[in-house]
C-alpha cells in the first residue's frame, strides 16, 4: 500500500489542491470498502461510503469488485437496496449456534400482514384488510413498524389520501433479499393477477372495516395544495 501523509489524528491530509491528486487506485478503494463494510453490523449506503472515502472515489465500482472477490467464500458481500453489507454464507449457519438470536415469534396476523405489505407495496391498511378479509388488529402494524420491517410510504392519491406501507431495508436484510423485486414467487403471482387490487363487483361485506374511520373530505382538505 502507498504511504499517505497523515495529520496528528492519523487522517490523511487533504490539501487545497485536491484535484492535483488522483483518486486512490481501484485496488485501494476496494480495500477501503472492505474495511468499512467489515466494521459495520448495519448495511452501509453507497452515499455513506462516498462520504467517508477520499475525494473522487467510486464506491459503486469498488463494491462490485469486492463482491466478486468474496464469491464462494465464508462471508459474502450482499446488496440491500442501495446499501451493502457483509454477511456469512447461509450454508455455514450450523457453525453459528452461539450467535443465533432468538427470533421474535410473530403472530399469524403479523406474518400475513408483512407478506401483504411486501408483495403489494405500497399498500393501504384498507387493502390489507380486503385481502385478509378481517380488520387489522390493533398493534399488528405497530409491531412491524417497531421491528423496523415496514414503514410509511407515500400517501395514495385517491380520495382520503390514505397512508401506505412499504417494507424497509432492515426487512430486506433479515430475509436476505437484494430488493423487494426479488421476493420469492413475485413474478408468478403478478402473472396470475393475484397482486391486483380488483374492486368487488357491487358491494362486498368484507374488508370494509377500515374505510369507515377515514373522512375523505377532511383529509382532502388537509392536503390541499
Amino acid at each position: 500500500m502507498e504511504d499517505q501523509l497523515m495529520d496528528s489524528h492519523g487522517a490523511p491530509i487533504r490539501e487545497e489542491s485536491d484535484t492535483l491528486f488522483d483518486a486512490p487506485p481501484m485496488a485501494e478503494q476496494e480495500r477501503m470498502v472492505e474495511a468499512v463494510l467489515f466494521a459495520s453490523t448495519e448495511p452501509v449506503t453507497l452515499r455513506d461510503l462516498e462520504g467517508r472515502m477520499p475525494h473522487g472515489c467510486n464506491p459503486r465500482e469498488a463494491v462490485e469488485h469486492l463482491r466478486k472477490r468474496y464469491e464462494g467464500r465464508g462471508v459474502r458481500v450482499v446488496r440491500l437496496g442501495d446499501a451493502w453489507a457483509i454477511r456469512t454464507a447461509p450454508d455455514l449457519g450450523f457453525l453459528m449456534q452461539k450467535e443465533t438470536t432468538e427470533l421474535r415469534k410473530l403472530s399469524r396476523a403479523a406474518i400475513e400482514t408483512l407478506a401483504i405489505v411486501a408483495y403489494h407495496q405500497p399498500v393501504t391498511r384498507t387493502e390489507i384488510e380486503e385481502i385478509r378479509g378481517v380488520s387489522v388488529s390493533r398493534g399488528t402494524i405497530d409491531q412491524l413498524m417497531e421491528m423496523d420491517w415496514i414503514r410509511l410510504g407515500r400517501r395514495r392519491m385517491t380520495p382520503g389520501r390514505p397512508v401506505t406501507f412499504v417494507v424497509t431495508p432492515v426487512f430486506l436484510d433479515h430475509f436476505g433479499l437484494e430488493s423487494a423485486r426479488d421476493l420469492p414467487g413475485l413474478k408468478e403471482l403478478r402473472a396470475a393477477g393475484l397482486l391486483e387490487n380488483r374492486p368487488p363487483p357491487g358491494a362486498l361485506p368484507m374488508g370494509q372495516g377500515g374505510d369507515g374511520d377515514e373522512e375523505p373530505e377532511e383529509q382532502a382538505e388537509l392536503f390541499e395544495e
Partner: protein
Amino acid sequence: MAEQTLFSEADTTVEERLAAEALIVDVDGFEGPLDLLLTLSRTQKVDLRKISVLDLAKQYLTFVNKAKELRIELAADYLVMAAWLAFLKSRLLLPPDPEEEGPSGEELAAHLAFQLERLQAMRDASARLLARDRLGRDFFSRGEEESVARIKTVTYTANLLDLMQAYARIRTKEDFRPFVMDRDSVFTMEEALDRMRHLLGFTGDWTDLISYLPDGWHSDPVKRRSATASTFAASLQLVKEGKAELRQSESFAPIQLRSLNEDT
C-alpha cells in the same frame, strides 16, 4: 334460515359433518369469514380456481347454522358474510332477472373465488418468506462492531414511532380534561353574580347593564351572548334579593341597573 337447514343434513356426508364439527369447536382459531371459507374450501380438494362457490356458500351456511344450534356466539363479521352468501346462493340458483340491477351471481362468485385465491397466495408467500435463510439464524452480521474511538460526536436520534407517539400523547391529553374546562366561551351565572356583587358597591347611579360585562367578553359574539345572558340573570337575582333595581325605558332599549344599598 329454514331454507338452509334443507342442506345441512341432506347434502353433507358423515365425513364432512365431522369436519364441520371440528371446525366449530375451533371457531376461535379463524381470522375472519374469509379465513373460514378458505378452510372450508379444502374439503372440495380442487384447485381454488375451479372451486364451486355455490357448494362453498352452502357449507358456510351449514357451518353458521351448526354454530347457532350449539349456541356459539359468532362475531358480526361471520353473520354478515352468511347473509351475503345466502344472497349469492339465491342469485346463483335462480334464473337471472333482467329487471335486477347490479352484478350477476357469476361475477360475485368469481370475485369471491379470486379473493380466496389471493388470500391463499399470500399465505403461501408468507410461508416461503419465513422459510428463507434469515439474518440471525442462517446467516449473520458482524459480531464485533469495530469502534475506533477517535472522534466522539453525540447524535440524537428518534424514530418515526417516537414522533407519532409523542404527537398522539399531546393530542390525546386534552381528551381527559373535565368537560367544563372546555367551555371557555361560557360565562356562568355564578361568575356573573360574583362580579356584580363586587361591582355594585362602586356604582351609585343608573348604569347600563352592558357595562357590567367583563373585559374581553364584548367583541366575540358567542362570548358576548353568554356574558349578557348571565349578567342579566344575575341582575334579576340581585333585584330579587333587594340589592338592586332595574329599569328599561321602552322595548329593546338598554336595560339599566342601580344599587339599592346606596340609597338606603
